[in-house]
């Protein structure tokens, strides 16, 4: 299999999602600032959601919402997979709550007179 064929087979959504995940991972590992790590986590989370959703994506199909009762018979031939959408929907809301929890720990550490670099909190990271 030559390289052009390989590239043509890549799903653009999942590929960009994978690259966004890698960018987030790089931010988490390479930056010491607590707030920057939280930002990198939200970027990584967006990438993960893109990958999960791309699993159910079928080119050229419509959203899983019916117009009338008569549609139901042909629904599975015209619509994308609704299951990953339902999973991602709840994951996004949880993501906000987890980010807020992460940030309140950072605020607590700062309020106790601490630095905002993770390296001043012991050797846990490396």
């Amino acid at each position: 299999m030559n390289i052009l064929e390989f590239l043509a087979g890549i799903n653009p959504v999942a590929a960009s999602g994978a690259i966004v995940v890698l960018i987030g991972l790089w931010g988490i590992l390479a930056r010491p600032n607590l707030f920057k790590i939280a930002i990198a986590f939200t970027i990584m989370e967006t990438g993960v959601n893109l990958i999960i959703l791309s699993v159910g994506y079928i080119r050229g199909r419509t959203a899983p919402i019916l117009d009338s009762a008569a549609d139901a018979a042909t629904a599975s031939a015209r619509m994308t997979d609704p299951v990953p959408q339902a999973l991602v929907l709840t994951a996004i809301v949880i993501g906000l709550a987890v980010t807020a929890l992460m940030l309140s720990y950072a605020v607590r550490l700062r309020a106790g007179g601490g630095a905002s670099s993770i390296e001043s909190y012991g050797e846990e990271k490396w």
Partner: protein
Amino acid sequence: MMRKILVILAIVGFAVVLLPLAYQAGVQPAPGALATEYLEKAPAELGTANVVTAIVVSYRGFDTLGEVAVLFAATAGVGALLTRKRLGLASTREKRMPATEILRTATRFLTSLLILFGVYIFVHGHLTPGGGFQGGVVIATAILLNLLAEPESHLAHGVMTGVEALSGAAYVTLGLLGAFLAWGFLDPRVLPAGSIGALVSAGTVPLIYSVIGLKVGAELSGILDALKGDRE
């Protein structure tokens, strides 16, 4: 130097793991067996036009209940971490800049409209895109506008706690009603399914999603208020 090499190694390792996913995802020609089942049965069984809502509220309703519980735990954690006593700020009360006239006037106009829009989104969750989570976020946005316009003000905590507790209890009660009067926990067929496209249809799906919307709105407002600070 060592650290940079380790970072690069970790990223390359992750890339190798993700590459087959990026290559294979999205190549399926049709939804899987489970998704086909949901797409064909949901409108007939539950009367929801939006199949995603049917999955979130009914078929996977137990997941959503757990998710709301996680949201509650995270909100409680944020509130517990950020009290003034724990932050050691008992005496210092910093002055905040007052909001501008434009913001205050716009807030007076927009608050009721935003809350109405949020309620509209979650009441129509079974017909159109949207639902409890999106509507709850819109309601939290209305409360955020008020917090920005009156920097010294605070949420009425009694009201927020009451809304949250009542909506949580109502969610579980609706689920139990499904268990006793219909087929199982969170089964919406307690009320008749009605005709697809009508506002009053789909059994208890709109009720459950409204309750989720109120709960999510109260919880996210609580997170915003706790992070804003100056809480006693």
